[in-house]
């Protein structure tokens, strides 16, 4: 069941939570609503569910307008951030709740409900916990039960509000993988809200980045990461190093730092965005850039060594981060306090007030220059 969101507006008092949001959620896909708190992502999810009403606009499920339909008639499964399990009911009773809420004519027999619950318990891999009460479960188990409860009535659409937000890192990763597998098996249309870019990129088929009540960008995780379309998306998808300065004579200059920018108009403000993996470190400046930085900290944990650097002789709002492979690290042996130079491979240039960046690939331009000579 596909979902169409058509020009939704929502105000809370004087605060505009959603500004004319339109969006298409394709059938059978797992879509992430990604954004910082206050971006309107949870409000949008609640409006899709019918837990909140919009001031204007329409919600369509598979072409049918459901805007005026009550939550209980929308046939959606909703999973809450803090599980919202009924604490006076056992796990099995919780899962059976939706089936027992069906109108008499559609309600399966007691026997059948018991079988369906047993099957769902198998699915969430917790059959031995049927008779426990929610308070006796761990966070991860509670979230699985909440999922089984939401799926019991076989909804067309599954909506999840920060489903892993309250769990610790290890359980979170397990549950993420498990949800992905579940989704691939059952193929319902799902939307989940998250503020964790890693979670959104890892889990979803499509990511919707939201900011201040508006959709910033919609793309597949790969597409989104490869081509962020705005400063906001850049900032939100992990760390980014920024050099902001003035373009002078084919160069972006600020203090002692500069980067060559072939083919950019003279005398305008510009920001160059460089992601940690798009920059290399060298002990001497290169022909295309001179970005002196002093090493502040080195973090060895992970598949890559992460080096934090502070600008030397120029300014940056945030500290710079550059990734380096362990092999490279062993060869170069950078140590804290040393002066190094950043050499960009690929960068994203925002000129003056333009919203969209221009991607610059120095390796490519250098190769082109070399072959021209």
């Amino acid at each position: 069941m596909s979902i169409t969101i058509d020009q939704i507006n929502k105000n809370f008092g004087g605060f505009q939570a959603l500004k004319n949001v339109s969006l298409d959620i394709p059938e059978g896909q797992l879509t992430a609503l990604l954004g910082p708190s206050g971006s309107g992502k949870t409000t949008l999810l609640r409006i899709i569910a019918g837990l909140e009403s919009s001031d204007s606009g329409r919600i369509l499920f598979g072409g049918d307008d459901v805007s005026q339909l009550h939550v209980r008639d929308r046939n959606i499964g909703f999973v809450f951030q803090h599980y919202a399990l009924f604490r006076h009911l056992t796990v099995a009773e919780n899962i059976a709740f939706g089936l027992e809420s069906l109108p008499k004519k559609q309600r399966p027999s007691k026997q059948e409900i018991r079988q369906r619950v047993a099957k769902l318990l198998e699915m969430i891999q917790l059959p031995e916990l049927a008779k426990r009460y929610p308070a006796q479960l761990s966070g991860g188990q509670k979230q699985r039960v909440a999922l089984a409860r939401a799926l019991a009535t076989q909804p067309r659409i599954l909506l999840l509000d920060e489903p892993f937000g309250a769990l610790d890192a290890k359980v979170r990763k397990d549950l993420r993988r498990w949800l992905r597998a579940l989704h691939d098996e059952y193929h319902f249309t799902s939307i989940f809200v998250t503020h964790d870019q890693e979670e959104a990129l890892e889990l979803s088929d499509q990511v919707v980045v939201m900011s201040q009540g508006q959709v910033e960008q919609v793309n597949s995780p790969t597409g989104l990461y490869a081509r962020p379309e705005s400063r906001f998306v850049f900032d939100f998808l992990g760390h980014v190093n920024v050099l902001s300065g003035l373009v002078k004579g084919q160069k972006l200059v600020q203090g002692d730092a500069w980067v060559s920018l072939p083919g950019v108009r003279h005398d305008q403000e510009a920001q160059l965005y460089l992601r940690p993996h798009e920059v290399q470190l060298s002990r001497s400046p290169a022909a295309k850039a001179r970005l002196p930085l002093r090493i502040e900290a080195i973090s060895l944990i992970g598949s890559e060594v992460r080096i934090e650097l502070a600008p030397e002789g120029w300014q940056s709002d945030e500290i710079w981060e550059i990734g380096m492979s362990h092999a490279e690290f062993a060869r170069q042996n950078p140590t804290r306090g040393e002066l190094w130079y950043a050499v960009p491979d690929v960068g994203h240039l925002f000129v003056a007030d333009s919203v969209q960046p221009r991607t610059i690939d120095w390796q490519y331009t250098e190769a082109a220059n070399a072959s021209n000579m």
Partner: protein
Amino acid sequence: MSTSAQAGVAPVRRLGRRSKRVLPGFGLSLGISLFFVSLVLLLPMTGLVVETSGMTWDQFWFTITDPRVVESYKVTLWTALAASLFNGLFGLLLAWVLVRYEFPGKRIVDAVVDLPFALPTAVAGITLATLFSQNGWYGQWLAKIGLEVAFTPLGIVVAMAFTSIPFVVRTVQPVLEELSPADEEAAVSLGASDGRVFRKVIFPSLWPALVTGIALSFTRSLGEFGAIIFIAGNTPYVSEVTSLMIFIRLQEYDYAAASAIASLVLLASLILLFSINLWQGRYLRRLEGR
């Protein structure tokens, strides 16, 4: 022998170390509390027992099974039950309205709920008697439909309900406030009707508090005196409550008989409160997963 001596010494030393608690003043605060509890509660209760113990068993039995007294038990029990059940319904409604809706004057209504606690019960009794008497504001209308409240057992119910309504409201209110809206939303998203949401989700969280409120209201009503005697009419065998019987025995300088009846009321209240506590403890343990 030497081992037992050692065993006797070791716990003392450990106790000494244990006394270095993070929160200071445990001994002092507990001591003062226990002393005060004894002074205010236990000592008078003991006095009651001592006073009663002057009687022989036969005298005791004769006093508490006097037909007029037995009739007063019946009147007190059914009126208290009716009053507390009424309060259960109305108090729940009041608490619900106060927690769930916003309306002008809400804070005033919230404050007025405590009025029965603040008002001297005798004042309440006189006011109610005036309102419900044959030509009172309410009484004249009720008389037209053949309902007599003042100077009948019904008046006792009214007085009891009035003086004990805050118990239900004030025990249910905080629980209602703490209910997570997500639970109700979850139930609705699973297709439950409003009635089912109330029965299956809201009420189960609410009813331990509601039962406690009703029980408190009931025990309070069992002992209510001031408000009742002005409106009850106090007709022997019809509208006399047990607390009035105690008062009558006291007026007759029959202190032993008064204490005998009083000890029975005390016993009934204690049993009720303890059983409610036990039951509630078990119910809550389940919710907390212990």
